[in-house]
Every structure is written in structure tokens, then in C-alpha cells.
């Protein structure tokens, strides 16, 4: 057997899984899963959200116990009852939702997962050494709560490497990274593979898997639907395996009326605001208009002011004067989110749980939270009572229109997978037929099938006469759905350019050479210097 580099690979298997089954209530999260990993390979575990990937790796790492099946480690059957034991065997894990402690320093975080009584200063020195060796720079003394997501992930990886694992499990590692950070991660993974370590790479991003993985196991509804070499497949065939059906390619008709023929639905005029904390980005002189019928895309590397921009136009942060943000001819700059919704705007924030939806509230209650002002008569009775019937009827309509998969009639928002919750959050806005939709990262962490559906709905909404503004770090997404694209960099917004005249490369150049992290550190340094 040879790997992609043509290098000999030991014939023994490192890890083999036979017939692993895990049942939650009536749901078979894993149903007789088989696969194996050999030393020195990057093995992809592919599947849609909710296919059972995370459940499977939690069992490999000892956080969950299987209900059936056997795990073999170096050809002998093992039962992994807790993470300590997994680490002792040589299995390391980098979590999707980081398992870091924000109030502790990077070095303290690393110390917690290493056994024994090594002093903190030794751990810090060792971590610094490993972090340089693998090109993952970290600051051992900084508090994790002060760091960017990319840097947090580097700490997780360094922590994992310090345990000298033979198998490293990475759960959706790039879902939180900028393209540049992802590149650095891939270089690290290549180096680890060259050293003979094995990597189990969980993802639903097909391009990545095709690029770096040697073999792939595809899961669907908890079952293995195939093993393949991802390089022999096309993105489309892999996606079809994951989803079980062909993904509809997106249809995008030309804008019927000429873009300049109608009054804009939104005009932003010289929007500037100072940074509200050392960790946020000031906005300066943003000018933009969105016309009915078109999708305008905002590209940019994470942390360049996109969240602040979204807060400003959604009314979470008010402007200095009303005319800074005009929505359908109304001065909206001094209106809060409900006021802006009343005049026809709709918003979908980036963070689904906690911002887009209250995790413990049911879907219909979450529906009410975004529409109580704009559709007051439909959902609120004369005495301020909630019209539950009307709410659930609307929910049914959304569920049907967007094919939302959920457990139960009206479950809590937190029980839905990311993709399905995103469908509900966007669906409740689509359902209103708003004149203006502002969506921040509409398909972030959403599987391919759901993402295609959401993108199609966004285009259809625009073609039916609404103006849509999409903020996204996914350039392919913007090129697919936007008519015009502008780039946000360090709190400033470029002129918009027609989407058909740009490519990934030209957009990349527009984003500029500076990484946001560098700017961030400079800003923190200035703020700290100012305080002293």
C-alpha cells in the first residue's frame, strides 16, 4: 500500500472500528459503523450535519460509550471508557467547540490535559518549542479569553501534540478559520503525516477533503455509505454520497430590471463608529446602497469589521444621526432592530444560538421574537396574549418550504443541528417577504445540501423584488449568489464591483495583505498603552 506521496506505509492498522452502534432514545446516531486507519494517513470522515460524525469520534475519545461494536487499537480490542485512557493509548483530539478555559492562560490550559507534575514554566517552554516546530505560533501567558478563534485552535493543537499522540482527531477544524489560517493548518497536517502520524479529519467541506485526505469514509444517517479515495471523486459525487441525492445546482436568473432603474431599498451614507471595546473594530466612512432585485455581497477576512457593520445596520448599535442608514426612504439610523424591522428590513445574524435564536426557547417562540414587532397583529392578541395557533401555522409553513429536519413538533432551538436551525432563522425572515434582508454568514457551518437550498432562497427573494445584503467569508458563496461584491478590510468598505468581473484571486487581492490578527494585536497594544 502506498500513500499519495508514494511513500511506503506500514501494513498494520492503527485503529479499526467494527460495527459501532450508539443509540440516543429512538435515534440510532451510529448504526454498525466500520472503518480503519493506517499509520501516516489523513483519513476523512465525511457527512452532513447530524450524520453521526461527532458521536463516532466522541466514542473513539472515550467521552461517550458505544452500545455495540468493537474498537481495535493496534489489532487488539480495547474499551475506551474515558478521555484519559484514550490519551494514554495515543489518541489526541482537537474539538470543534473548543474545550478550552477562557479564564486560564494558554500554558495552564495545556497543563490541564497533561498528567504528572510538570511545572508551568516547563510546559510553557515546551509548548513554545512545539508551536514553532509546527508553525503554530502561540503566546503561553495570554489568557485564552483574549485570543482569536484561530489562535485558540492553535493552542488546542499544540496541547494535543504535546501528548505525543499516534492518532489525532480534528473535528471540523476549518469551520472557524480564515482561508489563510486554514492554509497554515494544512501545512501542519502535511508535516504530521510525513512524521508517520495518522489524522482523522472530520469535515463537510469537500474541497478540503479532496485536497489533503488520502482516504475517506462517508456517513449518512449514522451508517457508512462508502469508503473512497477522495481524489478519485468529484466534489459532486462526494456530495451525492453524503446527501444521498444530487445537490441541485443553483439557478440564478439575470436581474430583470436594470439595477439602476429603481430607488435603493437601503442607502448607507458615511457610516463611522469608534470601537466599543479593545476587541472590536472601528468602522470608517462606509457608503453603500442596495437596490431591489439584487444581492450585494460583502467579502472579507473574519475580524475586519463585519460583525460591527452588521450590528450597525441591524440597529443593535445606533448611529449618530438618522440619515446615516436609510431604509426604503426612511431615516433608520436612530431606530433599534424592531423599528427597522417595522419598515421592511429583516436580519439574520452570524451566531445562531444566543443571537439568532434563544437556545432553550421553542422554534415558535423564537419565531415570535423576531416578528412580534413587524407582524404584531398576526401573532399578538388584543390583550397582549400570544396567538399560538398562528405561530405554529407559520412554523409549519417554514418547515415545509425549507425542508427543516427536527425532532418533535415544536422543539427547543438548541436541539436542532446547525444547518436546520439556520433554515428556521432565515426561513422566518423569508416568510415575511421583507423588502430588505441582511444576512451575516448565512451558510456558516451548514452542510452542502442545506447551504444550496439557503442560497437558492436568497436569490429567489431578491428576484422577487427584495434587496439582499450578504456578509460572508466564503468567496465561492458570494461569487455564486451576489450581483455586486464589496470587500471589507479593517473597518473600511471598498467600492462595489459587478460579480461577473471578479474572480477569487482578484477578491483576495482586494482583501489586502494584512492579516486581521496583526491589526488586532496592534490595536490591543495601543489600547493597553493608553490605559497605562
Amino acid at each position, binding site marked *: 500500500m502506498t500513500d499519495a506521496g508514494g511513500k511506503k506505509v506500514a501494513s498494520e492498522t492503527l485503529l479499526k472500528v467494527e460495527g459501532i452502534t450508539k443509540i440516543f432514545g429512538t435515534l440510532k446516531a451510529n448504526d454498525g459503523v466500520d472503518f480503519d486507519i493506517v499509520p501516516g494517513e489523513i483519513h476523512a470522515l465525511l457527512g452532513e450535519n447530524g450524520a453521526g460524525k461527532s458521536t463516532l469520534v466522541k466514542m473513539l475519545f472515550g467521552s*461517550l460509550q458505544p452500545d455495540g461494536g468493537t474498537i481495535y487499537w493496534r489489532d487488539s480490542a480495547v474499551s475506551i471508557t474515558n478521555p484519559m485512557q484514550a490519551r494514554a493509548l495515543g489518541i489526541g483530539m482537537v474539538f470543534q467547540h473548543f474545550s478550552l478555559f477562557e*479564564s*486560564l492562560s494558554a500554558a*495552564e490550559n495545556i497543563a490541564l490535559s497533561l498528567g504528572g507534575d510538570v511545572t508551568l514554566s516547563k510546559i510553557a517552554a515546551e509548548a513554545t518549542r512545539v508551536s514553532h516546530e509546527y508553525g503554530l505560533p502561540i503566546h503561553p501567558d495570554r489568557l485564552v479569553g483574549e485570543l482569536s478563534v484561530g489562535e485558540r485552535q492553535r493552542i488546542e493543537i499544540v496541547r494535543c501534540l504535546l501528548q505525543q499522540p499516534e492518532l489525532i482527531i480534528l473535528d471540523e477544524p476549518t469551520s472557524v478559520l480564515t482561508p489563510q489560517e486554514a492554509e497554515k493548518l494544512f501545512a501542519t497536517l502535511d508535516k504530521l503525516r510525513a512524521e508517520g502520524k495518522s489524522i482523522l479529519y472530520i469535515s463537510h467541506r469537500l474541497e478540503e477533503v479532496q485536497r489533503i485526505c488520502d482516504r475517506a469514509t462517508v456517513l449518512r444517517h449514522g451508517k457508512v455509505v462508502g469508503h473512497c479515495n477522495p481524489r478519485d471523486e468529484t466534489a459532486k459525487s462526494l456530495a451525492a454520497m453524503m446527501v444521498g441525492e444530487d445537490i441541485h445546482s443553483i439557478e440564478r436568473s439575470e436581474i430583470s430590471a436594470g439595477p439602476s432603474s429603481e430607488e435603493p431599498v437601503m442607502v448607507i451614507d458615511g457610516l463611522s463608529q469608534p470601537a466599543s*471595546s479593545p476587541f472590536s473594530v472601528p468602522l470608517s466612512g462606509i457608503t453603500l446602497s442596495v437596490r431591489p432585485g439584487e444581492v450585494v455581497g460583502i467579502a472579507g477576512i473574519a475580524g475586519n469589521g463585519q460583525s460591527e457593520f452588521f450590528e450597525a445596520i441591524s440597529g443593535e448599535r445606533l448611529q449618530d444621526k438618522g440619515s446615516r442608514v436609510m431604509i426604503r426612504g426612511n431615516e433608520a439610523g436612530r431606530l433599534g432592530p424592531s423599528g427597522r424591522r417595522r419598515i421592511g428590513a429583516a436580519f439574520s445574524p452570524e451566531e445562531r444560538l444566543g443571537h439568532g435564536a434563544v437556545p432553550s426557547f421553542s422554534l415558535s417562540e423564537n419565531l415570535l421574537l423576531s416578528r412580534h414587532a413587524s407582524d404584531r397583529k398576526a401573532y399578538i392578541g388584543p390583550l397582549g396574549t400570544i396567538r399560538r395557533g398562528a405561530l405554529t401555522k407559520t412554523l409549519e409553513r417554514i418547515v415545509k418550504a425549507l425542508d427543516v429536519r427536527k425532532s418533535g413538533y415544536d422543539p427547543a432551538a438548541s436541539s436542532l443541528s446547525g444547518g436546520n436551525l439556520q433554515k428556521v432563522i432565515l426561513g422566518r425572515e423569508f416568510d415575511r417577504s421583507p423588502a430588505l434582508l441582511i444576512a451575516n454568514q448565512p451558510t456558516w457551518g451548514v452542510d452542502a445540501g442545506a447551504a444550496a437550498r439557503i442560497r437558492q432562497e436568497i436569490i429567489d427573494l431578491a428576484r422577487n423584488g427584495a434587496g439582499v445584503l450578504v456578509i460572508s467569508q466564503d468567496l465561492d458563496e458570494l461569487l455564486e449568489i451576489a450581483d455586486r461584491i464589496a470587500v471589507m478590510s479593517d473597518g473600511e468598505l471598498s467600492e462595489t464591483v459587478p460579480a461577473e468581473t471578479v474572480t477569487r484571486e482578484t477578491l483576495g487581492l482586494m482583501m489586502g495583505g494584512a492579516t486581521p490578527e496583526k491589526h488586532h494585536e496592534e490595536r490591543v497594544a495601543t489600547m493597553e498603552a493608553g490605559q497605562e
Partner: protein
Amino acid sequence: MSFEMAEAILLTIATAATPLLIAALGELVVERSGVLNLGVEGMMVMGAVTGFAAAQLSGSPWIGVLAAIVAGAVFSMLFAFLTLSLATNQVATGLSLTILGLGLSGMIGESFIGTPGLKLQSWVIPGLSEIPLVGKFLFAQDPIFYISILLTICVWWFIFRTRAGLTLRAVGDSHGSAHALGIRVIRIRYLAVLFGGACAGLAGGQLSLVYTPQWVENMTAGRGWIALALVVFASWLPWRVVAGAYLFGAVTIAQFHAQAQGIAIPSQFLSALPYLATIVVLVLISSNRRMTMRNTPASLGKPFVPER
């Protein structure tokens, strides 16, 4: 004010501050693990009555001290079982613990009302205790005073200098992350609550065996609540607990003296001072983001139910 009087006032401040210090140190460890136990007052009063009764029945105040510690610890296990094993709401459970403790102690102590108590004798260190002004304060105190100072050093050392302390802080910061790393969250929280209970019991014992050696119903008189406020006042740092305990101890003593001198400060105002000070401190610490992030247990009061 005469010299002797200043010396005497210092001594009484120490006696008033010691129970606050011990109970607050215990609660500090509990809160560092992410558990909010509002039952300090209840555990304290149980310690006071049990300590008094055990001393009476055995004739030894030391047996009383031990009994007070055990009573607080046992009582805290009721809280731990409910909030950690059954994941009940910590605020509601803590409040019930206080109400239960006040009632139960009244019942247990009924026959001891009016009985003259046994007092734990002071340890006077010859020579050193003759130093003017601070000699008596530092070297002629009751044993529980010395224990409280030793306890402060140990708690500080444990939290910031040991691996177990790091684990404790980690659990208090994010029980989910701790669980994912294989740290046994529930067990650590049980131990923290047990320690907090033992401390509250000891603090109660100090009241009925040193401060005022007798049993009076509700004799803790809100000291458990002050201890709780102190932990926040100290922003979860042991040395600041000492400063806070002595400050609030001094306020208590000032209250007596102000009354004796006929100074017209309403005693209610002085009683409210600790809580006012806590609010001021809360406002001040929230302005230092790094400090707050570093020392406030982020998962304080949140129940933890591991995924199975």
C-alpha cells in the same frame, strides 16, 4: 482613645472578623468550583449549635470545635446531593438550606438556651504577646484565629500554586470543557462543597465557643450572608477576603462603640455597609476586563449534567 482601649478594640475586631474570614474562604473554594451555595448561614448556625451542644455534653470545647466542623460538612452534603447529583437549582436549594438550618438549629438548641457555655482558651505566646499594641492581637488569640490565618495561606497556595487548584479553577470556568478533558467535574464539586461546609461549620463553632460562649437562637445574625458578599467583594481572591473580613469586622465593632458613645449613625446604616461596599467593588472590578475574566468563575451557579 487610650492605648489599652486601642489594643482591646483590635482584639475584638479580630474575634469579629475570624468567623467571616473562615466562612468566606470556604465559600470562595466552593464558588471557584462553579457552585453557588447560598446555604452558608444555615451551615454556620448548624455548626454553632452542634459545637455548643457537643462541648456541653463532652465537657471539652475542642470536641465542640470538631463537632461544629462535622455538622457543617454533613449539612453541606445535603446541598451537594441535591444540586450536583440531582442537578436542582443552586439558588433555590441554597436558600432552603439556610431556612432549614435556622429552624433545625433552633429545635436542637432549645434545651441549651441560657446554659453558660464553655470557652475555647486563648493561646498566649510568652514574650511576643508583650509587644505593645500588636502583641496581644497577634500572639494572644484563640486557636481559631490562628487556624483562620493558616487557612488563608493554605487556600491561596492551593488555588494558585497546585495542580489540584488549577483543576478546581478549570471546573469553575467551564464544566463542559473540563468534562471533555476527562476531569471528574461532579467529584471535584462535591469535595469543594464539603470543604465549604466544614469551614462554615467551624465559623459557626467559633461563634458559640469563642465569640459569645452560649447558644442563642439565630446567633449567626446574618454573618453567613456577609461571608457570601465578602467572596464577591474579594473578587474570588483569598487575600482580599482577609482585608474584607477585617474591614467588615471593624464595622461591626464600630457599630457597638458608636452606640456606646451615643454617636447618631443609624445602626441599620452600618449593618448595610458590607453590602454597599460589595456593590461598589462589583462596579469597580467589572471595569477591569482581564481581572474579571481571570478570577470570576464563569460557570458559577450553572448545573452540570454530563452527556451519557
